[in-house]
């Protein structure tokens, strides 16, 4: 699509930007992964059992970071006006933003997730599934996060509002992913959870841009 590539490259550059981006998300992720075992008890056998779950839940929390800047900064500095008058509709603009967000934070986090799970003593055989869940789940988190960010446009204290809007939407993918990981580790049926996670991810990618476009238009009006 005309203009989509130009915009995606710019959004990626902004998301990777100085100091923030993947490094910040990875550091935050490491902190959460270290803190959770401290609260839940240090016994290795117990940790090993919940390790994939911790690595997975921490992903959802890390995805909340920097959601605020996704639309709010463009709205405040007038860039959103410019984006609205370009060759691509606002829905495509939203897709470019969420995709860039995923590439800059979600994908690096998905690669860090197995390392975190290993450190906590998870079984090696669950790693491919964890990466797959993290990649697909991260995509869903990015698009749903974008939805929250767009809906919170123009409100003061947007950051907190985004988290409150978005976290309930994160519940289904967290449950599906955890179900798949749990089932796989325990040798139970697990494909159902994974398929539901993928379906949820596809649904989020298909529907949330429409809502984001409408929310941006509403904020500009």
């Amino acid at each position: 699509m005309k203009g989509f590539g130009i915009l995606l490259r710019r959004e990626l550059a902004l998301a990777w930007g100085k100091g923030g981006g993947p490094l910040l998300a990875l550091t935050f992720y490491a902190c959460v992964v270290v803190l959770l075992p401290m609260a839940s008890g240090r016994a290795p056998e117990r940790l090993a059992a919940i390790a994939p779950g911790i690595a997975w839940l921490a992903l959802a929390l890390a995805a909340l970071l920097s959601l605020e800047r996704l639309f709010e900064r463009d709205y405040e500095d007038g860039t959103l006006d410019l984006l609205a008058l370009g060759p691509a509709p606002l829905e495509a603009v939203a897709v470019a933003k969420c995709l860039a967000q995923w590439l800059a934070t979600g994908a690096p986090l998905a690669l860090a997730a197995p390392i975190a799970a290993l450190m906590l003593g998870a079984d090696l055989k669950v790693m491919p599934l964890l990466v797959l869940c993290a990649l697909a789940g991260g995509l869903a988190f990015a698009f749903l996060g974008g939805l929250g960010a767009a809906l919170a446009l123009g409100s003061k204290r947007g950051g907190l509002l985004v988290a409150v809007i978005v976290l309930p939407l994160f519940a289904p993918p967290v449950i599906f992913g955890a179900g798949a990981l749990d089932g796989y580790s325990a040798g139970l049926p697990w494909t159902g959870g994974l398929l539901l996670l993928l379906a949820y991810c596809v649904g989020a990618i298909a529907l949330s841009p429409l809502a984001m476009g409408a929310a941006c238009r509403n904020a500009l009006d």
Partner: protein
Amino acid sequence: MLRVVLIKELAITRGERTLFSRLDLTLRAGEAAVLMGRNGAGKTSLLRAVAGLLRPAEGTIAFESETGPIEADTARAEHLHLLGHQDGLKSSRTAWEELRFQTLWTGGTEDNARAAAKRFDLNRLLDLEVRRLSAGQRRRLALARLAASPRALWLLDEPMAPLDAGQRAAFGQVMAEHLAGGGMILASVHDPLPIPTRSVPIGMEGAGR
């Protein structure tokens, strides 16, 4: 190319308040009109309505080319520039990165962007981050995209405010060339523009003085 903008019976309300109603305005190729009115009269709202960002309460805004009407969405995606109070620049990016993106995004080429940078005397600034530019320099950078990507209708909201006298004259020259090439300008200003313009009073008659 966009040749005519037809505004008919336009009314704009914000919340409960009607800013203005029954506004008629026709802008043809080569014409510039300035919106006159007190603060809060609705000048910015009118510009945003023409740009399609704001839905008018009543009335229509139509666009026409030599060959016939242009869809509003097409006109907005291809034929008009809006420069509001804010420059729409990211402070962490360099001046060149921003100018290049804005030019490509609005349909120009990288060569256009380079020529515009030269035209607006920005060459020395291109490697600097936007945060290091002064307000006037930022505005020049934002104005450069108008010259860089060819769009017929310029909607300008107080374009001159941060510019010094020399830069105002230089931008006047750019606007004059744009009009001579069949362009159109609709601007809200407090100081008169350095080009021949038509004045359009905005606001409710006698309301809220």
